């Protein structure tokens, strides 16, 4: 909250200094959920949390290439406490990111400072710090970041002291993109106390022919000193619109889960191995009679501790009219002994006409055995929206659910989206 306040002050100070030519965009979403929660044995609760998301972007502030980006949310309970947490509170919020970025006009070079997310090789982190990247000569690229990791949860100080990392890449003629990436966090909380968190990784993109593409990554846990993950995906695009892909994943949970902050759930203290392979095929027709897409998916899961499971799924999407999107999907999950097997079916439709839009979504699960006395579970959501102006839209959904979790339950949601853009830029 203190950070939020200082960001707001910074914003207020910077705003007047933004000269002409600055492109300012702001977008907000207000969501009010209305739900009745009844847990057997407890008093019925009506909750009406109002959540406010706010984003702000300013491009070319004073200097061309300098931009500022901000996003966060806050929640206020209009009725009973809604938080589902061990330390409930009637208000909550998160400062998701807020950073300054400078883009050089060459070599895709840029620097960021503030709070932001980093995705570089094996690193997927939220940090308060600095980031820089650039293309180098002869196909090399480099990216580096450093700072303080953002606290993972609010009950404890579950974050390390500082974090640093980066990725060194090498690209060759549209055929190859190789990367080596690393991450070091000091005093990261683990099951065994404060430890350094070290990850090393290699990633690849290799396309020997324009129809064939291999991508993937392997990671090494430098703290446990074992390989944590191999994940690879081979795609082929033999004709336009057709994509077929096979993938393979091999993960050692002991090394992959080593730095979790919920060890009871992601238990790093076992020798379990997870392996999965599968295939997806999708075909898209863009012209006559109307656009359509069919996709099929198969996945096999193997866990040493739990056995083998399979997932078979398919989806068809049709766009019979310009503004009408529809889809149906079905999946069968044939799980290993001791895990529930089930079927899942879903249908949706979305239509907009002028300022009006409607949407429908129905999802059903049929479990092989009953869960809390129910085998069938379904949920239907219907909604509509109206654009008051091009930058102000109201929408809402009502959901009816009869599931093991919700017994003939009705919930509602109201949404207000608004945006302001000084130039009318993209999303």
């Amino acid at each position, binding site marked *: 909250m203190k950070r939020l306040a200082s960001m707001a002050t910074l914003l207020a100070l910077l705003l007047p200094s933004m000269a002409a030519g600055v492109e300012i965009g702001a977008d907000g979403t207000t969501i009010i959920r209305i739900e009745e929660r009844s847990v057997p044995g407890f008093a019925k609760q009506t909750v009406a949390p109002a959540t406010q998301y706010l984003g702000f972007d300013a491009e070319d502030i004073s200097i061309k290439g300098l931009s500022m980006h901000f996003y966060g949310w806050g929640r206020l309970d209009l009725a009973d406490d809604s938080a589902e947490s061990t330390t409930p509170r009637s208000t909550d919020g998160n400062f998701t990111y807020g950073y300054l970025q400078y883009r050089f006009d060459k070599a*895709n070079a840029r620097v960021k400072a503030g709070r932001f997310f980093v995705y*570089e090789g094996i690193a997927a982190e939220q940090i308060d710090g600095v980031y820089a990247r650039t293309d180098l*000569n002869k196909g090399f690229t480099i990216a580096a970041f450093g700072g303080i990791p953002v606290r*993972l949860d609010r009950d404890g100080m579950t974050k390390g002291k500082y974090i640093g990392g980066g990725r060194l890449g090498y*690209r060759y003629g549209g055929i190859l993109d190789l*990367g080596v990436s690393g991450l070091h966090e000091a005093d990261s909380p683990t099951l065994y106390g404060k430890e350094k968190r070290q990850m090393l990784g290699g990633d690849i993109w290799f396309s020997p022919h*324009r129809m064939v593409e291999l991508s993937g990554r392997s990671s090494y846990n430098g703290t446990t000193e074992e390989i944590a993950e191999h994940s690879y995906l081979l795609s082929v695009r033999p004709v336009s619109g057709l994509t077929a892909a096979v993938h393979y994943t091999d993960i050692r949970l002991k090394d992959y889960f080593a730095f979790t902050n919920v060890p009871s759930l992601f238990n790093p203290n076992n020798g379990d191995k997870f392996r999965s392979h599968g295939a997806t095929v999708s075909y898209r027709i863009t012209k006559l009679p109307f656009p359509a897409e069919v996709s099929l998916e198969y996945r096999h899961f193997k866990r040493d501790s739990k056995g083998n499971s399979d997932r078979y799924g398919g989806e068809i999407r049709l766009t019979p009219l310009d503004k009408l999107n529809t889809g149906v999907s079905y999946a069968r999950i044939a799980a290993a002994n001791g895990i529930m097997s089930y079927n899942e079916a879903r249908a949706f439709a979305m239509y907009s006409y002028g300022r009006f839009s409607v949407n429908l979504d129905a999802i059903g699960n049929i479990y092989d055995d009953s869960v809390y006395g129910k085998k069938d579970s379904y949920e239907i959501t219907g909604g509509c929206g109206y654009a008051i102006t091009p930058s102000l839209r109201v929408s809402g*959904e009502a959901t009816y659910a009869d599931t093991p979790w919700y017994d003939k339950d009705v919930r509602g949601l109201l949404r207000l989206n608004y945006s302001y853009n000084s130039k009318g830029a993209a999303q």
Partner: protein
Amino acid sequence: MNRVTWTIPAALGFGMLLMTACSQLLPASGNLPSTHPEALPQGRPVCTECHEATLKDSLKPYAVFDHTPSFVKDHRFAAQSEERTCAICHKQSFCTDCHANHNEIKPSLKLGDRPDRDLVHRGDYMTRHKFEGKLDPTGCYRCHGRANNEKCVTCHR
């Protein structure tokens, strides 16, 4: 704040500034635009409907970025080396709708008016997660393993 917490980022920051300053010596070709020049309609874009050749920096064919069902499902592979390309069209808030450190509303509720989006946890996930979570806990770990798990610990202590 102790000294280490500040000297390290400061040193890194300086190093980076130096590095980017050096990048000014590099040729100007291949720089991607800061935003996509053409506003795209809602829905997953198929780059090859409008683009033929290859991206000018990496020389990868545009088809690599066609938002096919497989691209969307496995976008982590594209993101690991191409975040700068994603950033042409996506603000970070687009990504944080699905994965952030602290989210409270399921993506499928926040974006409940977009049944065409590929959002996790549609329907009664409180029930279904007990089974799906056993098939592949590593997928869950990517979003809940180190963050966004305040709700989970009410049951999983």
